[in-house]
């Protein structure tokens, strides 16, 4: 009876052990990826900083701020959401936090009579919104782990098209900002139209333009530069989200590994107790049997009993040592 229980426990422990090995491996992989992802965030900074600086100088040089990407709409009837989530799960609340924030924002828009359009990155985002019956304009997947600039470019093109056709009057960008290893937060920011203050276009109007020569006209350069700026910003958001994803996964997998360890300790304890119980019962049976026999004064049988008793005691002793 007790032997059966012991076998079941042993099987459970070995299955927990296998799971623990997997979660531990995932934790280590995620940890190494965070560092890489952080490096990519850093490597992308010079470009976006320089692009911003050039835009500021252009605006100062009289480029004007009448580009479609800078024109604030009079009325917003439809808002596009660019949502950046992960392709894979097992990363704690990472996906749900972003997706819920977007769902709340859409609900708030609806109460103001605004429609929505969804441009999604990550399998989990596509699954979430498709399951809840939202209409998805475009969904991208396959690069949440390690986004490339070309991925950002493709996404930005889709979004810019929506915006420039006038199908949406505003674009919001929802992603997870990477603050530090231990802290990431969901951000929902205005992506288009660009805020003149954000790119320094308003501050620069006071300056004399720094005496720049332009080739071609400032307005034309600005027209080429603003889409690049939008791409760079989306790329930065993708990179930060990917760093956050790895950090969230590392934490989730560390918790899972710790839980597996606890579970294993508890089950091992229960299993050893069950084993000892079964041995004790066995000894009791032998002893009571031997007492019944000794009244018959049967020498040959007594030897056999003494031998089997010794074996049981040895097993019990080694068991105590284990525990």
């Amino acid at each position, binding site marked *: 009876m007790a032997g059966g229980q012991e076998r079941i426990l042993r099987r459970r422990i070995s299955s927990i052990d296998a799971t623990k090995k997997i979660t531990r491996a995932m934790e280590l992989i995620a940890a190494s990826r965070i560092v890489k992802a952080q490096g990519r965030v850093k490597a992308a900074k010079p470009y976006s900083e320089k692009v911003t600086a050039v835009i500021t100088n252009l605006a100062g040089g009289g480029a004007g701020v009448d580009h479609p990407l800078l024109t604030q709409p009079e009325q917003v009837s439809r808002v596009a959401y660019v949502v950046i989530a992960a392709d894979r799960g097992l990363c704690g609340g990472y996906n749900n936090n972003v997706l819920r924030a977007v769902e709340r924002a859409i609900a708030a828009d609806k109460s103001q009579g605004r429609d929505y359009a969804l441009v999604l990155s990550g399998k989990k985002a596509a699954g979430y919104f498709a399951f809840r019956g939202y209409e998805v304009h475009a969904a991208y997947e396959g690069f949440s782990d390690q986004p490339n600039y070309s991925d950002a470019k493709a996404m930005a093109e889709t979004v810019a098209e929506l915006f420039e056709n006038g199908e949406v009057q505003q674009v919001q960008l929802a992603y997870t900002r990477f603050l530090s290893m231990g802290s990431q937060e969901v951000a929902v920011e205005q992506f288009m139209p660009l805020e003149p203050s954000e790119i320094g276009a308003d501050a620069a109007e006071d300056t004399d333009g720094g005496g720049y*020569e332009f080739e071609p006209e400032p307005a034309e350069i600005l027209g080429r530069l603003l889409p690049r700026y939008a791409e760079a910003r989306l790329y930065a958001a993708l990179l930060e989200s990917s760093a956050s994803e790895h950090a969230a996964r590392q934490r989730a997998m560390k918790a899972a590994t710790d839980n597996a360890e606890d579970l294993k300790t508890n089950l091992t304890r229960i299993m050893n107790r069950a084993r000892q119980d079964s041995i004790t019962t066995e000894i009791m049976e032998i002893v009571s049997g031997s007492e019944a026999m000794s009244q018959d004064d049967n020498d040959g049988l007594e030897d056999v009993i003494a031998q089997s008793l010794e074996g049981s005691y040895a097993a019990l002793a080694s068991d105590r040592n284990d525990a």
Partner: protein
Amino acid sequence: MQVELVSPEAVLFSGECSQVVTRTVDGDIAFLDNHAPFIGALDIGQTQLWADDGVVSLAINGGFVEVSGNAVTILSDGALAAQDIDVAEAQSDLQSAEQALAADADDVEAAATKKWAETRIQVSEAG
């Protein structure tokens, strides 16, 4: 002067140069030390940097250049150094672009692809 070539994913070149030649949408332009402040949009074309240890040749697929305070910054989301160019790929791109152009002479995209392929071949041959 200090020259930086920056792509969205990394800083590709950073160092001291005596001369920079690049191509804006209005034509080729060269920068020497203490050039006047300048902002230009780059066309598809070859860019050459006269660095201390020799001339660096690159194929640039559009971008921007800013010159100010004796520093040249080239921003490009498609820049390839001569040694990174896959000539076979460029050749096959060139062929398919020429076919597209033969079918439709006004195909702007194919014309750009052709120009980019030609630039890559030219730069890899020069490098």
